[in-house]
């Protein structure tokens, strides 16, 4: 029996409404991005992307993601392991804290680092004496990105690992496997698709993050501008084609993420946490 309820007349109306909203709010702006980017032809589209500042922004974005995503993958696995496998005091508090970056404005996630490591911050004078730069440098960008994307991997893994239970790992131990072998041969294969799913979402956010990064970056053109910041800089300088060309890369990244995410949900639904099974 098909559980769908048929509401004659109303259902098509709701469907049309949804499509209209999606069209206006998502498809249209996305179309505009690409339209604007290609407004003056392919050459004009490519030219601003090959500008040294643009290339540097792309490189910096990739660097920040390449550092912060693995950090978060490691943290996510460790946190999920601890939460799903062990009972300890303050566990629910830890779970709440992992979620905090989701409920907090990214600006705050950037600002905390400025307050800690900025020139007027707690560690500012010490850092200046030792000639270490964190704010307005790649380190600051990574810190801000890590904080903003902290929940992505852990939140994918915790429900899955709780669901799977610890019996397989216990079985591996009784069969003579050590801790690391058990992790590598039993735990990791069981969570690999969920981990990839989390990493994918984490990566998309890491490359696209604007708010937190903007606070710590100082937007020094060609030095501390990631791709999203580069878009803003160009836009503020009325370089619309360049801005939209850079934005089209980000939009393309979003589309690729979406496709990969859908493939994962479709091919490996059984190995993702319950909320991702369709």
């Amino acid at each position: 029996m098909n559980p769908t309820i048929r509401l004659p007349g109303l259902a098509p109306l709701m469907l049309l409404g949804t499509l209209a909203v999606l069209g206006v709010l998502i498809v249209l702006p996305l179309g505009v991005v690409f339209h604007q980017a290609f407004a003056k032809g392919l050459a004009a589209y490519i030219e601003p992307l090959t500008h040294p500042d643009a290339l540097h922004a792309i490189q910096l974005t990739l660097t920040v993601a390449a550092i912060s995503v693995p950090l978060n993958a490691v943290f996510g696995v460790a946190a999920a392991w601890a939460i799903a496998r062990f009972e300890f005091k303050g566990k629910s508090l830890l779970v709440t804290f992992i979620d905090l970056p989701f409920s907090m404005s990214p600006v705050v996630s950037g600002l905390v680092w400025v307050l800690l490591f900025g020139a007027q911050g707690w560690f500012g004078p010490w850092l200046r004496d030792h000639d270490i730069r964190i704010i307005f440098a790649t380190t600051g960008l990574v810190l801000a990105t890590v904080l903003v994307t902290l929940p992505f991997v852990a939140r994918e893994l915790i429900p899955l690992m709780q669901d799977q239970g610890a019996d397989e790992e216990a079985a591996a131990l009784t069969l003579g496997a050590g801790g690391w072998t058990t992790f590598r041969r039993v735990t990791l294969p069981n969570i690999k698709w969920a981990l990839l799913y989390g990493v994918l979402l984490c990566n998309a956010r890491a490359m696209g993050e604007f708010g937190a990064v903007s606070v710590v970056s100082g937007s020094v053109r060609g030095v501390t501008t990631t791709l999203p910041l580069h878009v803003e800089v160009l836009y503020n300088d009325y370089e619309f084609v360049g801005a939209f060309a850079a934005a089209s890369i980000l939009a393309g990244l979003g589309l690729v993420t979406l496709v990969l995410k859908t493939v994962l949900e479709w091919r490996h639904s059984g190995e993702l946490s319950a909320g991702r099974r369709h």
Partner: protein
Amino acid sequence: MNFRQADDTNSHLALEIKGVSKAFGRFPALKNVSLQAKDKEFLALLGPSGSGKTTLLRVLAGLEKPDAGEVRFDDEDFLALPVRRRKVGMVFQHYALFRHMTVAQNIAFGLTVRKRSEKPSKSEIADRVNHLLQLVQLEGLDKRFPSQLSGGQRQRVALARALAIEPKMLLLDEPFGALDAQVRRELRRWLRELHDRAGVTTVFVTHDQEEALDLADRVAILKDGELIQLGAPNAVYEHPATPFVFDFLGQACRLPGVIDGDRLRVADWESAAPEGAPQGAVEVFFRPDEVAFAPTDGAGLAAEVRGVAQRGPDVRIDCVVEGATMELIGHGPTLPPGVTPGLAVRIKPLRPQVYAAG
């Protein structure tokens, strides 16, 4: 009932558990439990849920650390060994097969994780896997994944995987718990034969008294974390140490009685008191099928038949005895002819057990 016993003349004590206690927070899961198992013995840990039987099994495996007590195996301090060095084969209640590995990879796991110097060659591992597949009657399923197997097949893979490491001891946690009744009975026989052939000391946990009595050489009965009784299936069935054990091992009828010297009195029925019975007020327990029926002028407890129902080879007879309704079971020669509802009879418990009233 099983009459096979571990051969006393050749076997030494393999497993010794002394005064093991374990609490989870404030909940005491095990209280000062001591018991032993002989080499190659098949020992059942029997008890209701929450009795601590699974906790005890996990202590043996090394998956739980007891708060106090000692566990020795072959005179080795077992508690000092980490899980991986104990060489116990454990079969988990839900099998815990590695879901991303094939049947063959599951069985081979314990061999492939060995140190390089102790690891068998690829062909040796393949031979061993084939041999085990044969032993558990799963030839041809080596390339399947656990999700493609039935419950009974999964259980046998789990067993083969545990046997692959040539364990010193086999631990089974509710091995038949997740199977339906028919598969359960088939596997029970098969498991016993496998144990006898493999010759490994085996400890298994169950809440099913029939399973424990049928399979084990000895049965340890636990309740609320305490060992209540330990003995051969016949011994514990015929001489339950406490009312709890009596009740747990089968159906029970109970009546108040009095012991005066060497006489047991229950209402207007008097008989010889069982040996070693306490004096004074007692609780009299008997099995509903261990009862003789007699006419009203004979000896026994006055009873009135309320209902009679044929149930397969047995007849269920609902009686009122001393104001209490009882469900008795008659079969074959113990059943008097012409028992019908409304009839007054006398019933005589054949093997009453008495416990001090309290």
